[in-house]
């Protein structure tokens, strides 16, 4: 359960989020849509705990705990996962090695034993197969020379293996053609589970054709101005942000 209460966030001294409140119960998929500059990326970075995104007031509650002051790695260990709009390249570090380091770091932070090499390999291979990711791709340096689709599939693979309780998908569809988007959405849909919630952040409605949300929120000027079911996305598509937001206000 994610519960954001009246969140105010400054970036470089400028207030970007101006009283954001939001509740995402376990098992549900919520989408945040909004025009450029509404604070969508700020929302995802703030939830993941990025330095420079300063919470001036309000609270991020996660399964009954206030995580507002926690470091990004502590949040990750508690099950918050951010799928990046632009996943970073790390030259010389294979996807395999990165996955292993991430899984073991989280296990360590949670006080759990690390996986042995055989267990790890079995899990990675099974998850990679589901996502149509080849063994060869796992041996390549992380995201280096990956196509847009490969990068997003790799994000989904990380999600599948890290088993988060909250997955934030930041503009998951950007840079993808329809086929690649379908493949990624399929991967995400397979990961839907009663104890896992999703926050899908997107500018366009088209991704929501493939990942069906339970609730859609419209973010404008740093707060949620309207919430509704998936028909809201269609309204937006038809009338545009301005008309829908003005009507709400």
């Amino acid at each position: 359960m994610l519960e954001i209460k009246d969140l105010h966030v400054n970036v470089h001294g400028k207030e970007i989020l101006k009283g954001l409140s939001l509740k995402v119960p376990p098992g549900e998929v919520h989408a945040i849509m909004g025009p450029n500059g509404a604070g969508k990326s700020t929302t995802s970075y703030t939830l993941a705990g990025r330095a420079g995104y300063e919470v001036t007031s309000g609270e991020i509650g996660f399964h009954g705990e206030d995580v507002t002051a926690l470091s990004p790695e502590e949040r990750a260990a508690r099950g918050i996962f951010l799928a990046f709009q632009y996943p970073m390249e790390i030259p010389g570090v294979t996807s395999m090695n990165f996955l292993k380091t991430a899984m073991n770091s989280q296990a360590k932070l949670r006080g759990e034993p690390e996986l042995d090499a055989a267990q790890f390999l079995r899990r990675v291979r099974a998850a990679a197969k589901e996502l149509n990711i080849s063994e060869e791709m796992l041996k390549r340096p992380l995201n280096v020379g990956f196509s847009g689709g490969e990068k997003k599939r790799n994000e989904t693979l990380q999600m599948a293996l890290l088993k988060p309780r909250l997955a934030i998908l930041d503009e998951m569809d950007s840079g993808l053609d329809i086929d690649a988007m379908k493949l990624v959405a399929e991967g995400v849909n397979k990961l839907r589970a009663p104890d896992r919630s999703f926050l899908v952040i997107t500018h366009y409605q088209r991704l929501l054709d493939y990942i069906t949300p339970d609730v859609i929120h419209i973010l404008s000027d740093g707060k949620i101005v309207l919430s509704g079911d998936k028909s809201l996305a269609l309204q937006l598509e038809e009338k545009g942000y301005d008309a829908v937001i003005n009507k709400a206000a």
Partner: protein
Amino acid sequence: MSEETNTLQDLADQKYKYGFVSDIESELAPKGLSEEVIRFISAKKDEPDWLLQYRLDAYRRWLTLEEPAWARLRYPRIDFQDAYYYAAPKSDKDGPKTLDEVDPELLRTYEKLGIPLHEREVLAGVQERKVAVDAVFDSVSVVTTFKKELAKVGVVFCPISEALKTHPDLVRQYLGTVVPATDNFYATLNAAVFSEGSFVYIPPGVRCPMELSTYFRINAAKSGQFERTLIIADKGSHVSYLEGCTAPQRDENQLHAAVVELIAMDDAEIKYSTVQNWYPGDENGKGGIYNFVTKRGDCRGDHSKISWTQVETGSAITWKYPSCILRGDNSVGEFYSIAIANHLQQADTGTKMLHLGKNTTSRIISKGVSAGKAQNTYRGLVSVHAKADGARNFTQCDSLLLGDRCGAHTVPYIQSKNPKAILEHEATTSKISDDQLFYCLSRGIPTEEAVALIVNGFCREVLQQLPMEFAVEAQKLVGISLEGSVG
């Protein structure tokens, strides 16, 4: 100040694991440098007269030389009279015959360093292969393992002082033929006062059955270490050799001026790996080893190959250019280097590839990592002589900066007198970006581990060249060297 420099700026305490001092009584030569001291060292080693003359000639020449000043290194003038040129554990009167006779304190020292001196022990590696070790403590060799097993295939692996007694002709034939006593200030000093080091001879057609390794430890205060290593790979032979080094944490600087000579005959191959972890000094630049080293390999025979791999993480000052003379036709020279400088460390390191023979090829991969206020310079020479038809070189110099108070410098010299030579040079300079760090953090990887992961990735091509037994250790070392380089 940017967000990234905020994250990376706090260069704090680097933990040097090997900074302890062993409580061992030393026998020292009189302080300072003079003909008497050189005679003392030579007498201690019971050396033949030709070698004493070799030393004295070098000393007299050294007196006329000036310290080189062309490197990008800043340090106070070294007082060469304020050091001991010979230090030996007192218990080692006649040299221990077996491990049981070695001072237990010495054995404990190597145990703490993780160096196996008992033959039943092997370094923990994936395959648990055997590694023969020559352990040099200050100016003497403590013990050399697996000598008997190596002797079965004709491989000679022993301290150079012992080789002078058992294989005097071999030593005399090759000593100083790659790095002559007249070579440079520090090599000349070494020729005058060298006290220990390893000698390796691989007979024709023999593939050395195990990794050979020498472990150097400076312990005594105010002493320098001047080792001399000589490796000869005869026709069609193959050897992989590794050296490691550490020193106690002391406030004053200590001098290390080694000379390493490699000779590869026809079809022979020498792989020489170094994990240099001398005490680097503290975060304020106090103490640390001054490392002035001349290493050179001579591909004397056709189709011979010499490959240098170095992981340089220690020393306050590093001045080191492992080189290859590609004399034989079709010979190959390689240089793979990782140089990490943190705090106030200064490294000026690189290689020289001298193409003399036809169809000679060389490959240089250099990875420099700078953190804190460190300065890291790659200095290299690729030289192709007129007769070296078909010579090829590929050079890649990459620098990685952590924070905004350190420096990376690349000084490549390329000289070609042969119009048909093909020379390639690539260079990059990058920083660990804030985005990369956050990406790792968001996956649950804490900052220091994230930096170690990214730096290890940056160094991967070089780490892959290390013998498997040491690659894991080296990866950990990369992480440890940068401990405290991020806040």
